[in-house]
């Protein structure tokens, strides 16, 4: 993991000192709310429906056990004993008091965490593949590049007042777990003539105008990464619309100007900027950072204990079959710790659970923890022989739900239970879908399925790229839920198709059941996934199941 140097520590301390003074000046009346609001947003502090909310970045999703314990301690001391892991690899505290936030930020700084640029029209927390550094099919660990981008973008003076927020995702794998095609800039690592570089994708995004990103450069050498990114963002900074908030994201800039025009402008700006950057220094800095991300010395031991437990214990087997992913070392596994116990709030972890995860990471995962944009926790390097013991501890803490990648592994934004922007609730919809299908015992029968729920058109719940997407809206003062089908956030990124009219709050779970019963009847064989079936048969049979059945019920 990246280790802060003296510069980093001094930078955070100074930034926190400034914010503490800003809070004091707000409270003593020297700053109006209009003056204070942009300052608090730059430090991740929102005012939501019931309270303030502090959004803390988990850079590219990586945490060490000390950081996880600090997050737990903050939850206990200044919040309500839990935190909410988000779809952008952040953690949110839902109940901080304004007067406590400076102390919370100081506590975060002690472990090298911060809330800088987790809000506002700036370059946000750089996200990445949550299996980075561990996945079998990876080209190289994307996190050193993400860290380089974090250092470049943090407090970048030119990019503090962009037309709109700006999100960058990086993946080092052919299999895209970072939804790079739905980001303002997506960087997909590729190899060309033996050298590592990036395919640069621009103008993707969800929200009210969802778009799949377009390729701006098919191969960008690593040494050119920073001047090229600077060229893209500075082009957008000049060209992006400031007259209309809803047309201000780079996806609209790309759409309105065309990718060819954007490419010309970016390349011209890149030609100007490139000599100002020291490519050799970038390569040196990358080497310095990469050394910090060198993977652990993996221990070799017999995996018989895993095989024996898998044979003997059906509960362990169910968990191992869903929550493990292939590690680059066959004696190890990548463990997904589900924060989606049936009926629980997706992404929430209590402080006790956070501490248990920190202990487990130290005992069994070489001190490494990841947070996924799918709102789960990952232990990236667990020896298979340790899995039975790890599973037993997870069970004791309510963390052993065997549902990774299944129906109840639902992404849900906070929705109208917390968010000031929301138009409907998300969390209770997720809870009810999970408990309903748990009662029916259909989850494993249905197999791989991604349900994603957003409580407003801004799409924090990524509903457009859910195999089943649910969007909560306010229709004439009543919560109404629109369904999309066939979305895909992977390397085959696709936006879902709207089925038709929305469903009332008490009708959305039955609607999802009709879709899934239709799938079970339509699939060619048990191994044909929901998404494959949808791609084969299209929207029509699902639409029929959704609406004709509804009419029959009403008749």
């Amino acid at each position: 993991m990246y280790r802060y140097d003296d510069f980093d520590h001094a930078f955070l301390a100074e930034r926190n000192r400034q914010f503490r003074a800003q809070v004091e000046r707000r409270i003593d009346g020297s700053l109006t709310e209009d003056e204070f609001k942009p300052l608090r947003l730059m430090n991740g502090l929102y005012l939501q429906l019931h309270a303030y909310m502090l959004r803390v970045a988990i850079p590219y999703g990586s945490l060490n056990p000390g950081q996880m314990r600090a997050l737990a301690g903050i939850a206990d001391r200044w919040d309500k004993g839990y935190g909410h892991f988000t779809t952008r690899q952040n953690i949110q505290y839902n109940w901080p008091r304004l007067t406590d936030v400076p102390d919370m930020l100081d506590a975060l700084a002690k472990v090298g965490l911060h809330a800088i640029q987790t809000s506002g029209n700036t370059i946000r927390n750089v996200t990445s593949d949550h299996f980075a550094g561990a996945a079998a099919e990876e080209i190289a660990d994307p996190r050193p590049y993400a860290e380089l981008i974090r250092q470049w973008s943090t407090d970048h003076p030119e990019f503090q007042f962009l037309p709109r927020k700006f999100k960058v995702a990086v993946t080092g794998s052919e299999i895209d777990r970072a939804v790079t095609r739905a980001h303002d800039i997506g960087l997909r690592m590729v190899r060309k003539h033996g050298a590592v570089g990036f395919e640069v994708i621009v103008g993707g995004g969800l929200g009210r105008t969802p778009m799949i990103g377009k390729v701006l450069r098919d191969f960008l050498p690593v040494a050119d990464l920073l001047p090229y990114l600077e060229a893209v963002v500075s082009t957008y900074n000049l060209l992006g619309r400031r007259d209309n908030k809803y047309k201000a994201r780079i996806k609209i800039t790309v759409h309105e100007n065309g990718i060819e025009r954007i490419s010309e402008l970016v390349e011209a700006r890149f030609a100007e900027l490139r000599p100002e950057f020291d490519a050799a220094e970038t390569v040196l800095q990358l080497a310095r950072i990469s050394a910090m991300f060198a993977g652990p010395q993996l221990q070799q031991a017999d995996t018989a204990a895993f095989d024996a437990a898998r044979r003997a214990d059906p509960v362990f087997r169910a968990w191992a079959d869903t929550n493990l992913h292939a590690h680059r070392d066959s004696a190890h596994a990548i463990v997904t710790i589900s924060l989606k116990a049936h009926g629980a709030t997706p992404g929430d972890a209590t402080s006790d659970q956070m501490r248990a995860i920190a202990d487990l990471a130290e005992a069994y995962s070489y001190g490494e923890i990841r947070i996924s944009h799918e709102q789960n926790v990952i232990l990236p390097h667990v020896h298979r022989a340790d899995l039975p013991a790890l599973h037993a501890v997870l069970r004791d803490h309510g963390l052993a739900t065997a549902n990774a990648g299944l129906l109840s592994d639902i992404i849900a934004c906070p929705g109208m239970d917390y968010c000031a922007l929301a138009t409907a609730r998300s969390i209770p919809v997720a809870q009810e879908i999970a408990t309903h299908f748990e009662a029916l015992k259909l989850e494993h029968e249905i197999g791989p399925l991604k349900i994603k729920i957003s409580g407003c058109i801004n799409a924090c719940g990524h509903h457009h790229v859910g195999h089943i997407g649910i969007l909560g809206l306010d229709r004439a003062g009543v919560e109404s839920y629109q369904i999309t089908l066939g979305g895909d956030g992977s390397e085959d990124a696709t936006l879902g198709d709207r089925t038709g009219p929305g469903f009332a709050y008490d009708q959305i779970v039955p609607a999802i059941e009709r879709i899934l019963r239709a799938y079970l009847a339509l699939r060619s064989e048990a191994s044909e996934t929901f998404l494959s079936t949808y791609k084969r048969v299209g929207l029509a049979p699902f639409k029929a199941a959704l609406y004709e059945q509804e009419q029959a019920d009403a008749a």
Partner: protein
Amino acid sequence: MPARPFFKVVTGNALIDGDVVYLDATDAWTRNLSAAHVFTNADIANDALTHANARSHEVVGCYLADVQVTATGIAPNHFREDFRRRGPSNYAHGKQAAAKGSPHVSL
């Protein structure tokens, strides 16, 4: 069509803890909608809102919210205001946890 009756409360969030507050009949802030003052005259309500917004050392983001006056008390018109009045639905946090105690608070 007859004009809808004008029933509004002044609401915002407390500066320090962000909790939802309402203006009461004594011009103090209450955390319970049931103790809020219901304005029935648009001019008076708008004046009250202007004064409320000037109290930025106490509250943030004041606005007028539609309510109904029913036999059982003041009820929000919109579900968003109902969540603000009650707190989140996944945990008994916020106003649900603080249901006991004085409705009047010092900010």
